[in-house]
């Protein structure tokens, strides 16, 4: 198997799908000739031509709105929003149109569009290159929302998303594009090239949307998380020496209810982590599910560690990012309760 970065894995998924299905088209700002500001689509226009991979004007509602029209007419658009922070002009088209066309037309029309976007902080991007808006999509029935944290999952989930009959919001933790990141920004950067989870099969394979991945098995406490925080959790767990089960949710809508409930019933303790703003974040939903399904198994209140209720600050990035220290504190609290 090849060792790929997450960017290469995503590109590989699009490459595979462009080759397999003539209805796949790829477009977005700078994705055509140049190959995207993160170079995810680099080389694809050259390989498949301008009718398959092309540049758009800077109008996110056009990118999504055109994609909806194409998807309804049987194509499989996979569009890129340059940063998740810029998806809001398309929010109306995504939530009121893409999410509802199948239902409101009683299945006369459908909308198999994939909307890719880099998400999360850790690159000193400030408040407009760091956002984690997943909860703004997981509240919308009709959408699917996924967020892989490894090259292997990135490719497999992107292929699933592109084969899905419904609209999928595909969030890419940009801090993990080139390697895993455990939250210690002073440590030397790691690469996927020498990491087990950087192993990516060639050709077509898929990872089902709706299924979580057990990142680390354990019995003492369940950590429910996704994206960059998976590796932060792992580092915290290793340094504390706790027998934690780390579940990489990766599918945020629908959530893998069975996996969540089973693990927390087993461990009786739970911590939920995400980078997004706390209030009304996805952790709230997850905690509600956990307390409802596992109330009588819980030995301590479920803790959450999240980004603060403030814009992501440029210079104070590491005060904002929920790093190992805060995760460890929560783990200790939930273990000692």
């Amino acid at each position, binding site marked *: 198997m090849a060792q790929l970065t997450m960017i290469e894995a995503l590109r590989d998924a699009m490459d595979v799908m462009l080759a397999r299905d003539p209805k796949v088209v790829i477009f977005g700002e700078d994705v055509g000739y140049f190959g995207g500001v993160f170079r995810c689509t680099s080389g694809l226009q050259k390989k498949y031509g301008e009718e398959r991979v092309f540049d758009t004007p800077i109008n996110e509602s056009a990118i999504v709105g055109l994609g909806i*029209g194409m998807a309804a007419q049987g194509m499989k658009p996979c569009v890129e929003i340059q940063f998740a922070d810029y998806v809001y002009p398309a929010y109306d*088209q995504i939530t009121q*149109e893409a999410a509802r066309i199948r239902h409101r037309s009683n299945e006369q029309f459908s909308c198999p569009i994939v909307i890719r976007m880099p998400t999360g902080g850790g690159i000193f991007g400030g408040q407009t290159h760091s956002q984690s808006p997943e909860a703004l999509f997981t509240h919308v029935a009709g959408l699917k929302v996924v967020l892989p944290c490894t090259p292997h999952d990135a490719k497999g989930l992107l292929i699933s998303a592109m084969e899905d009959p419904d609209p999928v919001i595909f969030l890419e933790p940009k801090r993990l594009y080139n390697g895993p990141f455990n939250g210690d920004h002073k440590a030397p950067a790691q690469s996927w090239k020498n990491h087990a989870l950087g192993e990516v099969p060639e050709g077509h394979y898929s990872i089902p949307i709706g299924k979580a991945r057990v990142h680390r098995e354990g019995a003492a406490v369940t950590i429910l998380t996704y994206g960059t925080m998976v590796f932060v959790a792992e580092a915290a767990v290793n340094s504390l020496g706790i027998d934690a089960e780390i579940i990489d949710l990766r599918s945020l809508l629908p959530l893998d209810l069975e996996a969540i409930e089973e693990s927390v019933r087993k461990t009786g303790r739970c911590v939920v982590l995400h980078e997004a703003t706390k209030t009304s974040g996805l952790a709230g939903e997850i905690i509600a599910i956990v307390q409802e399904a596992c109330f009588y198994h819980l030995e301590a209140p479920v803790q959450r560690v999240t980004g603060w209720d403030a814009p992501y600050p440029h210079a104070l990035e590491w005060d904002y990012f929920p790093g190992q220290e805060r995760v460890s504190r929560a783990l200790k609290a939930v273990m000692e309760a």
Partner: protein
Amino acid sequence: MTSHCKLSFAHPPARPGQTPDFSSVEIPKAGLLPVLPLDVTAADCVEHANSLIRVMDENGEAVGPWAEFLTRFDVDTLRAGLRDMMMSRTIDMRMMNAQRQGKMSFYIQGVGEEAIACGFQRCLKAGDMNFPTYRQQGLLIAGGYPLEMLLGQFYSNAFDPLQGRQLPTLHSARDYGYFTVSGNLGTQYVHAVGWAMANALTQKDNISIGWIGDGSTASNDFHTALLSASSYSPPVILNVVNNQWAISTYTGVAKGRGRTYAARALGYGIPAIRVDGNDYLAVLAVSEWATRRVRADHGPVLIEWYTYRVGAHSSSDDPSAYRPRDEGKAWPFGDPIDRLKKHLIHIGEWSEQRHVQAEAEVLSTVVEVQKRVEAAGTMIDPKPIPGATIFKGVYAEMPEHIRRQRQELGV
């Protein structure tokens, strides 16, 4: 320069209690404007974007060069067109009544604007797709959509192809080239462009048609659609139905300092023309021209259909609060049904008598269907659709959390 600036606000020519006043509306003579080449560019249709294409003159005669596009249509088509419009109006009248009787929650009529949708539809072919608003029901009527389904949607009963999901008049009829209507204004305009791009990319020999109201040209989607159509040049016709009103808001508010909605497209390099929307012959002629242009890959075109919303905005609206009660009657371009009737009589293909008879026929058709459909349930006497349908089609496959909710609903 010490005095400050003052904002300007657009006002309609008359308000309740005042006499309707259309004196500022320019009424170019029928037949004056030349025909444009199919591959006309934006720069070459400035006049057509600012004036008004009219084909039928005061006597009911088809005049001028645009009439050449009528040759494709025989007189049976014109009579069918008259019937389409009568049907549309009769349904509107009956349904407004049914709504007032509490048999349905809500209704939106298109009285006065019938020529546009009914005429345009005659130039489409199988596989073309309209992206309509709630006020383009005429497309379905002229397109032969079964009346049972049309009415079923109003009553949300077993005849309703959408199983009660949508408000009355928010139809969806894929097989009849009618995209699922959104309650959110504007959004469909961009879909029309995307659909047309898909047609081009997958080598489908069909066009798509966006529809939008004058008020909704203010929406971002209007810009988005024009921009995208300008960038990629797909086979799409962009229709603007300018009926002078957006609920209570005068069209001048959306138009601002601009002269016409058509002219707005020129800035995007999209050719645009303006048409008397109450002139069924002009509608047919220009629609024929536009569909030919777009099918021949000369790129998008925008058409502003100039008309007047005679009825209330919807069954929830009372226009006497914001405009003179009889403003519709004063509309200088007349009534589309009256005018086509006059034309047909003028050319000796119709008579007052036949008209009365046709009216009776149309009415009895509608009454018959209405009875049959109402028997399947109205809001007064609903025959419930099973609650479980709420969860059907949220996704192609039902995920676990929704399965659990369906269980909780107990269905």
